[in-house]
């Protein structure tokens, strides 16, 4: 989640008093307030609006929303001057093929502004840039660079420069191995024979994207007036958007934007702030929103969102990345109209409600068992081998056919195969609660038979503590009598290892094996530190559900 920090004083000076009304406007603009302190206000920015990831960008759009500076904001752009060129060498083609660049001049930077620039750069990296994978941005003091610039790929050992926050020159590989930023982003260049670099007219390496800039030529400070900006990555369209967001921000800081000539095989010029055009139909707006707006009103609302409108066509700011379709503009109209003004109304259509059969039967089973004064418990579907196998007395070689989860952040990394371990875990956690404890659980279990197909089944487990075979069998029989289903019990030698031999039965429904019933072996109870005899049954509900479906 991206959050921007705004200086509260600056907000109140340049936008307005931060009273309750204003706070409501902020939230209804689509930037939820995370926190307000004495010094700052923290706003959440949704991933579709990277153009709001800085104070300048937010202020520009929000003032329009407040009705203060509505319509499409225009910035003056100057054509490339001599040598405002980037030569893109074909060597980057399979490595990091694209870059979009610009020059902004006449900045009057101070600490605050430098912080804002670095901040938006970082935020664009993590959001639109997908952690620098899709797009990475570099900003350089123009004074220290000789134009034109070449973007090319070199063998790692031919790259040598002093990276930011370092005092000695390093090779490309050394940066990836030793520099903190290098280590963090090394995976982005993993397996590449050559690494991309920007090299200036003096053959100085300016940076090695998407990793790091040079300490000598890639760091802006308060003395910097003119900057060179590059965005590098794989998707030229995204890079152009990214560049547009940055230059619009710098222009808001009174910078003057200059285009640069990009020498690909075909010439290109960036930045390009020509608005995107999209058709909008008043009819579609009114139909989707359930409103009855006039064209004039629609125009008014579009302008409040920073667009301009004329004769069915919307001009969209070039820094907006989220307008893919007319519906995106319709949402903008809705936001400008005000979500608080919509009158909720349930549609007048006739449909018949219906519960799922499985859910009805699960509920009925729960009701029957609750009638026997049993408590329903509910455990996680995720578990681990320790709880699911070792404590149940299942040796390593028999721990199979379970579904494993990749890279879980917790200790739970497999899906449960059965409910008995969950039920025993619950009893184990409750050894200090009053006995008798009569519990049950209904839920999904997962098995993966020889990697063929994962099977997901609904199961029921019932346990009594203290409990013996007679008592648990009484419950089993009562349950199935109430469901009007006939079951039989068979002796079995091939049973889960956690039961006492000779006190375990296989439960059969129409000769289909649906579960086990028995007394838990003291060896297993000891593993769980349970000091009460436990009797338990576990059944697969799928056969029962089928039976009910058949009866329908």
């Amino acid at each position, binding site marked *: 989640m991206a959050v921007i920090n705004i200086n509260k004083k600056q907000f109140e000076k340049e936008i307005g008093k931060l009273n309750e009304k204003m706070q409501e406007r902020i939230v209804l603009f689509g930037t939820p307030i995370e926190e307000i302190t004495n010094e700052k206000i923290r706003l959440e920015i949704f991933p579709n609006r990277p153009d709001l990831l800085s104070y300048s960008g937010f202020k520009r759009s929000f003032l329009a929303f407040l009705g203060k500076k509505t319509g499409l904001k225009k910035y003056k752009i100057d054509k490339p001057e001599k040598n405002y060129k980037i030569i893109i060498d074909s060597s980057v083609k399979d490595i990091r093929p694209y870059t979009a660049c610009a020059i902004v001049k006449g900045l009057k930077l101070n600490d605050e502004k430098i912080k804002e620039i670095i901040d938006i750069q970082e935020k664009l990296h993590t959001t639109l840039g997908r952690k620098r994978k899709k797009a990475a941005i570099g900003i350089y003091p123009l004074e220290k660079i000789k134009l034109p610039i070449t973007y090319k790929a070199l063998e790692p050992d031919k790259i040598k420069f002093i990276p930011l926050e370092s005092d000695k020159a390093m090779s490309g590989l050394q940066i990836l191995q030793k520099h903190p930023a290098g280590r963090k982003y090394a995976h982005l260049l993993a397996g590449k024979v050559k690494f991309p670099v920007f090299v200036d007219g003096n053959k100085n390496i300016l940076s090695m994207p998407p990793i790091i800039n040079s300490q000598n030529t890639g760091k802006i400070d308060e003395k910097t007036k003119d900057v060179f900006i590059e965005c590098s990555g794989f998707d030229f369209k995204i890079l152009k958007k990214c560049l547009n967001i940055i230059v619009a921000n710098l222009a808001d800081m009174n910078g003057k934007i200059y285009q640069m000539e990009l020498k690909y095989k075909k010439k290109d010029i960036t930045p390009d702030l020509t608005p995107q055009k999209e058709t909008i139909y008043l009819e579609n707006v009114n*139909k989707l929103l359930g409103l009855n707006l006039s064209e004039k009103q629609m125009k008014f609302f579009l302008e409040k969102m920073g667009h301009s409108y004329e004769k069915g066509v919307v001009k969209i700011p070039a820094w907006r990345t989220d307008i893919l379709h007319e519906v995106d503009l319709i949402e903008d109209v809705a936001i400008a109209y005000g979500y608080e003004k919509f009158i909720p109304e349930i549609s007048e259509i006739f449909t018949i409600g219906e519960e799922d059969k499985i859910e009805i039967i699960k509920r009925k089973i729960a009701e029957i068992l609750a009638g026997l004064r049993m408590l329903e418990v509910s455990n996680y579907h995720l578990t681990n081998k320790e709880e699911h196998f070792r404590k149940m007395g299942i040796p390593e070689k028999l721990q199979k056919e379970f579904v494993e989860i990749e890279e879980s952040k917790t200790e739970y990394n497999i899906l449960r195969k059965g409910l008995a371990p969950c039920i025993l875990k619950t009893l184990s956690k409750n050894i200090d609660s009053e006995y008798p404890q009569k519990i049950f659980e209904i839920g999904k279990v997962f098995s993966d038979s020889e990697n063929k197909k994962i099977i997901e089944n609904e199961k029921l487990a019932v346990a009594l503590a203290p409990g013996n075979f007679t008592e648990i069998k009484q419950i089993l029989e009562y349950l199935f009598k109430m469901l009007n289903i006939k079951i039989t019990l068979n002796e079995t030698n091939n049973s889960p290892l956690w039961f006492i031999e000779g006190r375990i039965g296989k439960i059969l429904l129409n000769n289909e094996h649906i579960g086990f019933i028995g007394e838990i072996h003291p060896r297993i109870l000891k593993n769980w530190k349970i000091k009460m005899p436990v009797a338990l049954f576990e059944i697969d509900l799928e056969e029962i559900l089928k039976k009910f479906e058949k009866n329908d």
Partner: protein
Amino acid sequence: MDMKKLIESLSPHERKILPYIKEKKISEICKKSNLDRTSVLRSLEYLKNKGLIELNFEKKKIVGIGINGSLYISKGLPERRLLNLLDKKRILSLEEVQKQSKLSDDEFRAAIGALKRKAIIELKNGKIIFSANKEEISKKSPEEIFLESLPLEYDSLTPEQLYALKSLQSRKDIIQIKEKKIISIEITNLGHELIQSKIKGQNLIEQVTSEILKKDSYWKGKKFRRYDINSSVPEISGGKQHFVNQAVEYARKIWVEMGFKEMTGNLITSSFWNFDALFTAQDHPVRDMQDTFFINQKTELPDKKIVRAVKKSHETGTAGSKGWQYSWSKEEAKKLVLRTHTTCLSSQTLAKLKKEDLPAKFFAIGKCFRNETVDWSHGFEFNQTEGIVIDENANFRNLLGYLQEFFRKMGFKKIRFTPAYFPYTEPSVEISAWHPEKKVWLELGGAGIFRPEVTIPLLGKNIPVLAWGPGFDRILLDYYKIKDLRELYKNDITKLRKMKFWVK
């Protein structure tokens, strides 16, 4: 309560002890009434509740005998045993005496110390010399006298006794001081009145038994003893559904009443249904292992037509959309995940829907998963409630209408809608509810109208589909007065027994 009712309310035990409550000592009352201490105490408590007596509890320190103390009473204090030995054997070498005395090191040292202090013996060059006469030696020491007189109340000890206590207390486990609750009974005016009035009613009926019901004459014309209906009874608890499931049942009922049909499905699903069919780009952060539980297996994709349409939606867009403009991978879509939202059920439902089924409304409530660490407000498993309305004429106001109704029925009186973002809906909306005590808006979940990039591949046509999927667990916390989401699946049986029912 008048006197008559009062008399009728006396239990047999209370009647039994009433004549003796003047005795004031519980042990006396026990003896005379022939009841055990517990019964007497309980009856006294009942009499107090009826305003007949006052009970005063006083704490008193009682000096009693410790483990070693009781041993010494029978065998004699170590110093006495030492003196007896000396008297008999006349051995005066320290080492030899200790050997023969069979006293432990501690006891021996204490005994020698005590005798020295009393000037009965002296030690010289490792030998014992008597310095007191025989009479003095055979006289009982104050400690011995004190020990034999125990137990005593601490407050009533004489200065000599206190001295003896101090000297014995310095030695191990001879003395044990306990606090004892002393109950004193004071009869109230009402009590006096009752005792003076004649207590009749030996033939009041106590428990109504089947025996009594056998013959009319057993109960006809007789009085039933009045019970104190306010006295506490032992707690019991019943069987019930898990409290989260009780709320789920209620939500299910709300949706069904509003004409929604239930969707259910597997918890393990393909990335295709969970993400791709919902226009979530393949490089979207939610598709990282950091956020989603992946299972290292792939599954087959559905019908080619749908796959092709979804691919187009992502790559170049559909019906005027620009799409995400990247190269969409089939293999990525085949990856299995634990569903991250119940919206994967909606995408599957839409794909199966036929023209003649419209308009249609569906809902789901079920478990979803996210690869998160666990804290008070997050878990890796959570419930979500899902809904879709497929209707040519559905609009944004209808969406808000359904949501408002659902949350009103869930107990949220004041809710608001604010802009939100989801890759698969446009417009999108976040629902928050006003928390009157905390005075904040609580986020309840998201909703929106499915984008054409979602509906066209699945329905073949851009029909508005209202869709929502608020998290369900968080909206229960207030009702159950739970502050920590972890409490939901803790399965603490004591708490489950006490947890109130979902009554809505």
